[in-house]
């Protein structure tokens, strides 16, 4: 009886482990509308309303927790923000001058000023209802899906700047991969006061740091300069969405490119309301 029970226990554990590995294998090998993905879709249809309700219910507690945590960081944050304000004030002045020049030139060639988002673009508001709790994935689940017009690879922004892009969609929810995720790559540019804006690729990492890669060593980039999406041809991000600010620039003789660190404008720990830019 004891031996039988021990054997049953081991067989059950082995079956569950094989099932886990099998699920993982099928998930990666099957197409987007395969059985495992469809099961995920069905399960999310049941879970998403519960997650949405829970997210709303805990919002006061979460805001209280964040407020308390921020009290401890207030003094150092104040000093840091004051420096950032000074740097940004300089940038704004320079950008205003560029904007006036741009308006004059576009008027000359007869182009219409469409703003950051092209005409015909629709912004769909959504709430973050779940987040990945581990460092391995920087993703959130939002309360808008294909029923609201959200499509794969739509850009996601909030009032602070670029948040990420949609990487999975169900009828009522969508997964957003944040720009800090290891698998995220965004075409970006550094807004410099003079000359052409250096272009690069903004990459996330497991540590949550952002780095602007493939920027030519000859490009003049300084800490404090703004980084925005470059909107290159074929990019899913339109030009000019604010991303962050350069915090450090390093060069090594043996490297072909500069090593640039970027601090994002968006506070990913307190994400709540976002907007999906529907193309």
């Amino acid at each position, binding site marked *: 009886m*004891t031996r039988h*029970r*021990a054997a*049953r*226990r081991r067989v*059950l*554990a082995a079956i*569950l*482990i094989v*099932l*886990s*590995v*099998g*699920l*993982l*294998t099928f*998930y*990666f090998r099957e197409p987007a509308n395969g059985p*495992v993905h469809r*099961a*995920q879709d069905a*399960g*999310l249809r049941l*879970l998403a309303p*519960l*997650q949405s309700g*829970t*997210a709303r219910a*805990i919002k006061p507690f*979460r805001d209280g*927790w*964040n407020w308390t*945590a921020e009290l401890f960081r207030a003094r150092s944050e104040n000093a840091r923000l004051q420096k950032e304000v000074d740097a940004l004030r300089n940038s704004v002045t320079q950008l205003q001058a560029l904007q006036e020049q741009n308006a004059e030139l576009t008027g000359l060639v007869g182009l219409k000023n469409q703003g950051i988002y092209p005409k015909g673009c629709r912004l769909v508001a959504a709430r973050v*209802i*779940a*987040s*990945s*709790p*581990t*460092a*391995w*994935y920087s*993703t959130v*689940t939002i309360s808008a899906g294909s029923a609201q017009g959200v499509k794969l690879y739509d850009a996601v922004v909030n009032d602070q700047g670029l948040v990420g892009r949609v*990487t*999975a969609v169900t009828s009522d929810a969508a*997964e957003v991969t944040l720009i800090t995720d*290891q*698998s995220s790559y965004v075409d970006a540019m550094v807004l410099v006061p003079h000359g052409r804006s250096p272009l690069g690729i903004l990459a996330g*990492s*497991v*540590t949550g740091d952002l780095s602007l890669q493939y920027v030519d060593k000859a490009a003049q980039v300084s800490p404090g300069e703004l980084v925005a999406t470059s909107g290159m041809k074929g990019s899913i991000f339109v030009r000019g969405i604010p991303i962050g600010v350069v915090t450090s620039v390093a060069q090594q003789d043996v490297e072909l490119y500069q090593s640039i660190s970027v601090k994002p404008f968006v506070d990913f*720990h307190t994400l709540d309301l976002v907007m999906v830019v529907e193309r």
Partner: protein
Amino acid sequence: MARRRPPGPAEHPHVGLEVVRLSVLLVATVLLQTTITPNIRILGANPDFMLVIVAAVGLLRGAEIGALFGFAGGALVALALFQPPGVVALALIIVGYLAGRYAETSDLSSGLAPLITVFAASIVASVVLTVAQFLLGREAPVWFVATRVILPVTVLNTLLAAPIFIVTKWWLGGRVERSSEVD
């Protein structure tokens, strides 16, 4: 060789009620893990409520139910977060199974069992997840994994072990299954 026997036959809860309680606990844990846990950052990391509760279920209900609960919990969390199913489930199966075996073969009267179990389970699960993520192509510096993932998560989980075990024991009825075997 004398076999060690439990003090008396434990009464097993009604199967239907047991399934309902475990199901409610499972859904509540998934919601806790996906909506509340990401907002709790201490020492730069988030606690893992799912792991702690799987360990508690394993301690209270044995290896088989612990492994099943771990599989279901891991699969549901991955499903809720659009992550590949199977990675977290694999780690939690091991946690639930080993916690159950520990409960079935050891004396749990000291009260430290939940803390010891969760401490060991956190390290084991973190290592399993790190290896799995590496095989899936997600890399991270070793110093980051050791200091920002394994260490703070283990500390946080261990701190939560006692209160969560008490709540889980209350919800499931507090009966502990003991095997009559000695390995």
